[in-house]
């Protein structure tokens, strides 16, 4: 049957027999895609008198928005913080490989590095759409060097920096350029950091708090200036204390400006955070949970360990003990919430008009297929 020509000649695909994640629920609905976007079938029917050209039978699978990883340092032997001559080849390799784990967009992350590394690496990584070649690059995540020495974690101490008189100028001197930078993690207790937070937010860069010994008040001040993320909650920050909850207190702070959400990344491998702590965070602030891998170059070697798909399953397994994190919530933590964090309204959801970045999963959340812009880019071997 020909598709109707009144609006577009492009072929229309109808995914049938699936349970799609929409409105925070899994619903038995078909999903329609045209030209890489999710289509409103009712408008198609009444306005264009159009119908599907192809039907894809999802055999009852769960269909969720493609996963978005905002903290991934490399993988498969590639280290994004390494100043190689061909950084984009490394990014491409990882972007292709992570399709197998349902990640359709990501933020290549650099740990604390000397200025020379940033000046060499940053110009080679550009924001670009995903496709059959690999997941889309949403922009770089620069974790450090403006972080706390006491909470450096695995970051090299000699390259840590503070803000001198110039604030944002110091930052620009370190990084060279903010083009293609989606997010910066810094420690808000550093002198001069609050004006930097404000300026970064003004330029559209997401500011995250992490590797820090900030108290709650300093963290709240940063949120006031526009900070909206916490890098790997609990790790590399002061522990929750009942008289000063520190950065962790942002989850329930009443000083977060209304209408704004503070998101928090969790490495949900059961190792970085005790599952009980993960549950406390989730129960305190379920809408802010963002699943990240914080994967390093060793990821994928051996295959299957510490991958995002695994995280989601871990969440599922952990919450077998707990009422409160449903499959839908876990899926949203891996897709919707990171998209909201980065203010990407056309990603992380299956609303009409959104990008058709999709994953098909079975009931145990094992990945069956990955789609970017409606095109199948990975399929599990039978």
């Amino acid at each position: 049957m020909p598709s109707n020509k009144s609006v577009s000649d492009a072929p229309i695909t109808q995914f049938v027999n699936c349970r799609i994640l929409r409105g925070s629920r899994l619903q038995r609905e078909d999903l329609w895609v045209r030209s890489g976007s999710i289509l409103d079938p009712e408008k198609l029917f009444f306005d264009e008198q159009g119908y599907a050209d192809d039907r894809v039978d999802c055999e009852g699978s769960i269909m969720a928005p493609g996963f978005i990883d905002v903290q991934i340092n490399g993988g498969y032997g590639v280290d994004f913080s390494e100043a190689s001559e061909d950084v984009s080849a490394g990014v491409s390799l990882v972007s292709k490989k992570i399709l197998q784990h349902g990640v359709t967009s990501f933020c290549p992350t650099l740990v604390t590095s000397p200025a020379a590394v940033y000046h060499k690496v940053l110009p080679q990584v550009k924001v670009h759409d995903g496709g059959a070649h690999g997941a889309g690059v949403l922009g770089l995540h620069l974790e450090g060097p403006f972080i706390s020495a006491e909470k450096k974690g695995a970051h090299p101490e000699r390259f840590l920096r503070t803000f001198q008189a110039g604030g944002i100028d110091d930052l620009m001197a370190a990084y060279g350029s903010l083009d293609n930078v989606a997010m910066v993690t810094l420690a808000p207790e550093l002198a001069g950091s609050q004006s930097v937070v404000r300026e970064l937010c003004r330029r559209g860069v997401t500011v995250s708090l992490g590797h820090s010994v900030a108290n709650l008040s300093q963290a709240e001040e940063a949120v006031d200036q526009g900070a909206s993320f916490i890098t790997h909650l609990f790790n590399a920050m002061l522990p929750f204390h009942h008289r000063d909850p520190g950065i962790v207190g942002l989850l329930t702070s009443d000083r977060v400006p209304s209408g704004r959400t503070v998101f928090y990344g969790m490495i949900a491998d059961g190792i970085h955070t005790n599952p009980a702590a993960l549950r406390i965070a989730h129960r305190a602030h379920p809408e802010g949970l963002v699943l990240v891998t914080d994967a390093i170059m060793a990821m994928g070697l051996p295959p299957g360990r510490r991958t995002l798909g695994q995280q989601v399953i871990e969440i599922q397994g952990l919450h077998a003990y707990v009422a409160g994190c449903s499959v839908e919530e876990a899926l949203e933590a891996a897709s919707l919430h990171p998209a909201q964090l980065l203010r990407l309204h056309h990603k992380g959801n299956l609303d009409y008009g959104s990008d058709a970045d999709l994953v098909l999963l079975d009931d145990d959340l094992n990945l069956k297929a990955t789609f970017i812009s409606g095109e199948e880019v990975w399929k599990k071997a039978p």
Partner: protein
Amino acid sequence: MDPVPLGGLQEQTRAITMRLVILDDYDLASEWAAKYIRNRIIQFKPTAERCFTLGLPTGSTPYSCYQKLIEYYRSGDISFKYVKTFNMDEYVGLPRAHPESYHSYMWNNFFKHIDIDPANVHILDGNAEDLEAECQAYEDKIAEAGGIEMFVGGIGPDGHIAFNEPGSSLVSRTRVKTLAKDTIVANARFFGNDLSKVPSMALTVGVGTVMNAKEVVILITGAHKAFALYKAIEEGVNHMWTVSAFQQHPRTIFVCDEDATLELRVKTVKYFKGLMHVHNRLVDPELSIKDQ
């Protein structure tokens, strides 16, 4: 004493009849209606050149009937490929994408689940620039399609058919109507019980338009419709109860559940219940396109 035995479907399409079909409950009534619609479409053997034209209602009454028809499509027993539909009505001024518009109702509860050709679907446009022209065009489209083979409808608590409110002309055509208070109150439940949010006007086929159909099937279920059913069939033809007009239609079937008959005379109910074995010849056997 048995009445003169009536034939099945073949007879139904030629004879002049008024049938009151009474089933025990809402589900059985919906199923009977769906089976009848299915049989009539299949027996008609619609083709691209000769479509089966079906008039359709909205509301809670026909919901289960639509569900059944979707089931029959899913099981491969019926196709809507050569069925042309004409809905009875639509609100004026409600955005088409509004969840309570009749476009949304038909899409969500019927069209999206079946293989109907969108070009064969007709619903009045309550947002047309020129509402009167829209109504006239609708009448023209019905005429072009060769008239309606079967018009399925419901009945309001005030006895109206479509939005032909009490006092409507019994020879009316498709037009703009202002809704009666009863209707607005009855529909408020779909608009959060806020009377101010219910549209006050609608486009509707006229009583005359439905009377032109070759056959009329009216679904009436629930105790709240009982008085209207009484007025429609046990009292005279009266424009205050517009469904009563169908007493003068050559082929009418009222499909009801027990509750809807609560205001009828025991005699009437017993008479028609006694005819169920005749009525059931219309739905048994259930035809299927698999057999064609």
